[in-house]
């Protein structure tokens, strides 16, 4: 293997590493700014690939008939790499500033998320510059003979090995230890070193070489100086969009290989850029936190409970303090919650040491599949919004069948349908009995029965580290308790405020929205790609 080919192999490998590392960062960026829409990955990947393709086409302008002997190819290549990395470094902050032009309220309907895609041309430009490198390197290194296909395959393999290494190293190691800002700076510097290396190799001499290296050094210095300013408030801008106020900062931002979790000053948790829960176990009339407390209204003794999705730990904490509950298995796919979020907040911290609670880091579906013998009195899934990526995995008929098989006789499945008629329709088809509690579906393999007195006793017995949920000597507390319990009085009443709604199966079956809805399956992917 000649030195020119070896150099080319090194270049394509490093280019692959940098390109895929940027791609990983941008997937995270667009997933976050679109609140984890399933199509965000396709849109980002599509833009990236089209950028690479256009770059490849553009590279033809820099090729001539001398089959790579002209060093001007390498000089052009050096400039491409320099420009690609400078733009690549700027993508995240630029997208975040452009995101502040998007109306925040429009994110849930998808309009705002689509607007976020208007920033994709930035990705295309950077990818185009990177995309021009592979053909130019090939032109430089491969002779036009009968072995061209074979030599191309080695370079292609080198590029893919670099890409794979970038994907794995950046996605699973760097993202677990470094922040987006640090990764962006690191990648930009790798690119600048690569650019300088190519310039050095391209037979530039004297003042010309010095100029090129000086340009690279200036770019590096500019990146170092501006990075702290450009990335300050990055995730606040990406998440809050038009409602972002200058200097507004979250209480906590956790960046890990699992994604980005943010918690604002009101202790609201956001996973991947969208509301995902609240830290706080208090229960007041009209509070949506009534849903995990409701378990004792429909089950006499839920001793063994499975929680799918630990998140910030609030629901698990509430269930762990239910006097009837003896054992909780909480399955959470994102280890960052139990490792970095929950330890920080006193209201939920004790679940980490509560002997009743076992936290398992795994995919909920996989855990159920691998534990067919486990049966529960209740399975609780405070799932995320039905339109987010992978949401249908926890709302599909196949998943509900799986849950049903893990319920003891009379067991309860309580899950958050987040307003999806299709999820409600799916539950109606899978379970013999269902009810709609606020926006949650209560489902069981036996007829649901409601016991107000039992629920009152359970709520009255609730006690968090020595502090009762309702003081028996406090008249206001007792008044609140009765108002909360009155939800059961609304059983079977159709016209009622959402925070007091308790629709029976009969009402759901008369609801035209629910009955017209198409059930969610693993194959049709629910609302993920199309909202309806």
């Amino acid at each position, binding site marked *: 293997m000649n030195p020119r080919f070896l150099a080319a192999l090194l270049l394509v490998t490093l280019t692959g590493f940098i390109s895929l590392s940027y791609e990983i960062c941008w997937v995270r960026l667009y997933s976050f700014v679109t609140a984890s829409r399933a*199509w965000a990955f396709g849109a980002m*990947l599509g833009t990236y690939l089209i950028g690479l393709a256009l770059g*490849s086409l553009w590279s033809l302008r820099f090729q001539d008939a001398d089959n790579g002997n002209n060093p001007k190819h390498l000089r052009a290549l050096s400039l491409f790499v320099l420009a690609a990395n400078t733009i690549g470094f700027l993508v995240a902050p630029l997208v975040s500033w452009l995101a502040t032009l998007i109306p925040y309220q429009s994110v849930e309907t998808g309009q705002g998320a689509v607007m976020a895609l208007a920033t994709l041309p930035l990705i295309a430009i950077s990818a185009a510059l990177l995309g021009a490198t592979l053909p130019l390197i090939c032109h430089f290194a491969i002779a036009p003979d009968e072995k061209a296909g*074979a030599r191309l*395959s080695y370079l292609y393999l080198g590029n893919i090995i670099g890409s794979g290494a970038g*994907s794995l190293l950046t*996605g699973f190691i760097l993202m677990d230890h470094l922040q987006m800002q640090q990764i962006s700076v690191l990648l930009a510097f790798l690119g600048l070193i690569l650019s300088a290396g190519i310039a050095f190799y391209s037979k530039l001499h004297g003042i010309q070489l010095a100029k090129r290296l000086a340009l690279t050094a200036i770019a590096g210095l500019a990146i170092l100086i501006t990075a702290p300013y450009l990335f300050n408030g990055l995730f606040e801008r990406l998440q809050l969009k038009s409602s972002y106020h200058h200097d507004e900062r979250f209480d906590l931002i956790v960046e890990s290989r699992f994604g980005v979790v943010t918690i604002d000053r009101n202790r609201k948790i956001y996973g991947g850029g969208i509301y995902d829960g609240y830290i706080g176990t208090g229960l007041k009339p009209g509070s949506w936190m009534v849903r995990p407390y409701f378990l004792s209204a429909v089950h006499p003794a839920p001793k063994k409970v499975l929680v799918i999705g630990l998140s910030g730990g609030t629901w698990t904490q509430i269930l762990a303090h239910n006097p009837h509950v003896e054992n909780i298995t909480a399955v959470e796919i994102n280890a960052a919650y139990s490792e970095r979020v929950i330890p920080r907040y006193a209201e939920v911290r004790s679940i980490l040491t509560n002997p009743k609670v076992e936290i398992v880091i795994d995919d909920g579906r996989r855990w159920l599949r691998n534990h067919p013998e486990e049966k529960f009195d209740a399975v609780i899934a405070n799932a995320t919004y039905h339109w987010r990526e992978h949401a249908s995995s926890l709302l599909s008929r196949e998943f509900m069948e799986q849950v049903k098989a893990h319920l003891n006789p009379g067991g309860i499945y309580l899950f958050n349908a987040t307003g999806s008629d299709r999820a409600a329709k799916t539950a109606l088809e899978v379970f013999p009995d269902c009810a709609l509690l606020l926006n949650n579906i209560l489902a069981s393999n036996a007829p649901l029965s409601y016991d107000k007195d039992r629920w009152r006793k359970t709520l009255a017995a609730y006690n968090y580290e020595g502090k009762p949920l309702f003081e028996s000597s406090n008249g206001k507390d007792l008044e609140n308790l009765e108002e909360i319990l009155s939800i059961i009085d609304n059983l079977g009443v159709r016209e009622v405020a959402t925070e007091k709604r308790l629709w029976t199966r009969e009402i759901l079956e008369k609801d035209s929205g629910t009955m017209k809805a198409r059930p969610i399956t693993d194959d049709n992917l629910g609302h*993920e790609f199309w909202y309806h």
Partner: protein
Amino acid sequence: MGPKLMTKATTSPALDNASTQGSDTHGLGIPQRALFLIFTLSGISALFYQLIWQRALLTIFGSNIESVTVVVSAFMLGLGIGSIAGGAISKRPGTQLLLIFATVEIAIGIYGAFSLHLFQWVGHFTANSGTFQTGLLTLTLILIPTLLMGSTLPLLVAHCVNVSKNVGRSVSTLYFVNTLGAGIGAFLAAFVFLGMLGLTRSVYLAVTLNLLAGVTILYFRRKDASRPA
């Protein structure tokens, strides 16, 4: 074959040498634009498969970070090894490059047609299996078709270099059409077909594209072969 291509092919002394060492003289009969269009379709279908298979496998085997790693690595590994295999095949004397390309496209289509059923079957088969065993099986399931996909670029590059004698131009153009197809495929899958058709019917659409690519090449080859010398 486009006139420009034909001129180069018939006047290049280097090609006479190449034709005895791995070129595809009969296969040169396909119009250049048709070849590029076919490779675009191949790119579209590849991205359909990537998005569909990734989704199906993560649903079956779990969407935790380890599963994502296995799926991503399998794609990379398959494309890389496939590229080497395609490159090795392309330099063997007497190889009919376009015939192999057509066969590979049809093979990808056949695998695609059965892929989701195969994934489901393996999913049931591996219930309760360890992470390593599940990972290995997932890797294999992806490796087979991506190996085939990875071989297509070197095969076509070898074919086009035989004609144009310009590596950069061949790589750029083929890389352009295939990657452009892949980009279009990603958009179409994400914004149109996955929502409209779901996984199974989307995969059948990708299968159709592969079969169309393979059969079109075979048609032109046959037409070229039947032409008087």
